[in-house]
């Protein structure tokens, strides 16, 4: 009945424009798993994308780095899929685009397979959702890998410590974004198998996950397969969400980080509008405009669930160049239209890939509350010069963080 209701909802009154990402969304009554189906018979392929609503923002004090560690641990074997077999099976069925990623706000796992091999992929994904088996040996091995990854990507990478300091300055201790995904070295080293098992039980439950499937399948047959492989998983309550309060910066922060790099670098950062809002799109277009116009500045809107981060970076020892550029540069309507168009083109190009489409369905379902949000998402980029100017005016010196990277002598 829920499936029928989902179909009727999906087909009820709505805008006449063609849906870029049509989908059927429903929830499994047995365990609360959200399912999003988007049939597309154009190629004999199916993409499966599983989202868990857990990222580094959901870690408790002392367990930072655990969300990222689970990106590794989820490949360590489950009750019915022995350790090491996951990738072996994926290879044997011709899977492509296979991986898992974690972020501040979520963790995902994905693969694309020939459509006749789909059920095998459902077996693999459902088994680790319901029956992950964590052994001490596997845990220790992946803990070491996570420590090495942190060292490579953050501690030892050029400007890695500076990038981390930007987040720590924008989001003080206690804010969910303070740990900046990879967590603290000390926390990762002190993690235990018990703590990991608790984290899994708390967050990797069907009620805290969604499965998006795109490609060449029949929806009713797919519903049967979903019932079989995911409907039989144990139930478990989704973790309660805490409210996120971001204290605004009101009197500017200016820090120096000494690193073994050759060139000084300055990064200026502001809190900016959260993802999928109209102003988030304005910030993204502004970042594109700055990067296109300037030969030396790189700007980025890093869109996040609770509050985003807007940065402008230059290889310099002072933010004076950034200040002058932001204060004096005026963009024409043609430039704004061209930048917005480039972003829309990149998005539509990416949506040709069914794996990316599945990921966006989960993204929209989670963050916009509507898996079919793609049309509204694209419409957000109808940005004007006035929108850009209004947003630029909010990037004041008293609201910003400046992180200066100073080459070690």
């Amino acid at each position, binding site marked *: 009945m829920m499936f029928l209701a989902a*179909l009727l909802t*999906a*087909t*009820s009154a*709505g805008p006449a424009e*063609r*849906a*870029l990402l*049509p989908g*059927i969304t429903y929830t499994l009554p*047995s*365990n609360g798993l959200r399912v999003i189906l988007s*049939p*597309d018979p*154009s*190629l*004999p*392929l199916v993409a499966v994308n599983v989202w868990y609503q857990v990222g580094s923002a959901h870690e408790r004090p002392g367990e930072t780095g655990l969300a990222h560690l689970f990106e590794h641990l989820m490949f360590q074997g489950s*009750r*019915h899929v022995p350790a090491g077999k996951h990738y072996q*099976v994926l290879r*044997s*069925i*011709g899977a*492509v*685009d296979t991986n898992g990623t974690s972020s501040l706000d979520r963790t995902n796992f994905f693969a*694309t*397979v*020939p*459509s*006749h*091999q789909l*059920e*095998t992929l*459902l*077996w693999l994904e459902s*088994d680790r959702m319901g*029956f992950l088996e964590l052994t001490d040996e596997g845990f220790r091995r992946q803990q070491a890998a996570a420590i090495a990854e942190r060292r490579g990507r953050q501690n030892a990478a050029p400007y890695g410590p500076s990038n981390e300091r930007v987040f720590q300055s924008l989001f003080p201790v206690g804010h969910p974004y303070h740990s900046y995904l990879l967590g603290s070295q000390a926390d990762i080293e002190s993690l235990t198998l018990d703590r990991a098992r608790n984290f899994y039980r708390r967050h990797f439950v069907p009620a805290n996950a969604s499965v998006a499937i795109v490609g060449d399948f*029949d*929806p*009713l*047959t797919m*519903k*049967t397969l979903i*019932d*079989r492989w995911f*409907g*039989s*998983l*144990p*139930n478990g309550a989704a973790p309660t969400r805490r409210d996120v309060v971001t204290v605004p910066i009101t009197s500017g922060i200016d820090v120096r980080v000494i690193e073994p790099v050759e060139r000084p670098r300055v990064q200026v950062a502001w809190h900016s509008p959260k993802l999928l809002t109209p102003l988030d799109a304005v910030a993204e277009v502004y970042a594109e405009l700055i990067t296109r116009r300037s030969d030396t500045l790189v700007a980025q809107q890093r869109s996040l669930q609770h509050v985003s981060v807007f940065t402008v970076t230059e290889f310099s020892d002072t933010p004076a160049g950034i200040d002058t550029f932001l204060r004096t540069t005026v963009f024409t309507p043609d430039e704004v239209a061209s930048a917005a*168009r480039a972003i*829309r*083109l990149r998005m*539509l*190009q990416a*949506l*040709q*890939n*069914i794996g990316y489409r599945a990921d966006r369905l989960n993204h929209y379902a989670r963050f916009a509350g509507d898996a079919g949000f793609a049309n509204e998402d694209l419409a957000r980029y109808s940005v004007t010069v006035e929108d850009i100017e209004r947003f630029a005016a909010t990037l004041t010196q008293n609201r910003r963080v400046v992180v200066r990277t100073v080459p070690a002598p």
Partner: protein
Amino acid sequence: MTRLGLVLMFVASCAAPEPRVVTLTPNADLGWRATPPALEPGLPFRGPAVQTGVLPNNMTVAVVERHRLPVFAIHIVIQAGSADDPPGSPGCAATYAELLCPGLTVNTTVDALTISATVLDSPDRILVKALQCLRDFSVDESTIKAARNAIDLRAKGSSVEAEVHETLYPEHPYGHLARGTKEGRSALTPSTIKQFHHDHIVPERIAVIVVGPVTLSAVKRWSDEALGNWAPTAVDRPLVPAAPEVHGQLRFLAQPGSPRVVLNAVASGVPRRHPDALALSLGSAIIGRRLNAGIDALDLRVGFASRRGPGTLRIQAIAASERAAELRTAIIAELESPTVTEGELDLARRDYRNRLPAQLQTGEATAGVLGALFATGLPLDYFTALPEKLATLEATDVTRVVRAHFDPDRLSFVATGDPSLLSELGASIGNASGD
């Protein structure tokens, strides 16, 4: 899909036979999960639905209609590449490409030039602009200089790719990279480039390929309006000659202090149109599987880059420096028994069929795959006959082709690593040279 489409889909689904329903409670015995789903037999391969036409001036037009997203991928492929560089002018095709259509991307390979663009709307505007670039091409000394500088900026120093070409194809049109050489580009004059344009840019060697929400008739109309009256005379395009007999060469690129060795074992293969080309592709995959199972390397890949002329077979293995000579010996040893079994062929065939659709997901990739067919002289409906060709391939065919082309005596080597490895590798191979 529209909302109405979803309703219709649901109604159609309801009319289908009742699906198998499995009811389980969360606490039921879940031992059945230990049995993986049975692997289904492969579905018949469905290639892209290519519609083709030919304009009165003999230019080819191909369209794959895709109406799901408002994205148009446009490729204009010209059967002229760096293999057509005039003698003594390596880099002529690449420089011509740089000059051809400012504002659009023009890529050069050994076999073809491709103008490409992806747009959200008005594909006719880009298409007409690109075609008019071909018709109205002009060049002078100052524009050559700018093009030369642009290519020099992008060009890297000594590269493995350049060494592979020089090793396998001495005195051959494939003997240099598509971008040519700095010396070759420096010597180019406007008249050389005009002659290249005159000799190669003719409608019968051009294919317009569009993938997106568009019809063949529309693309034909736009192309005809842009270039319908343009019909310069073609000159014969010579066949790419067979590759010279080369074996046992070693080229070494020094990377002082590198803890790793990258060993490329290379040989020339057959042209893509050759009857053995498909067997060689599958044979490469089978060899790759064997080597990966038998050799402990950090990374090991085997591939066959097919071209209009003799393509390149390559085994690339990466290992710790101290294993350099052992790596070479292990590769040779694995190639000593080239008999391919039916089981190996079945697996390779299945992999080939399974992975192909994933390469055709985007308009850009699909246009690229079709462009490569045109560039190498294969028909654009190549994929229609492919399943039958795959099915009729026999293990004895693949064994014969593997035996002929992966013969250890035919291999040459291009390696990178610490200079101390040169003598060790050279002693085991002979004919060594290093930089």
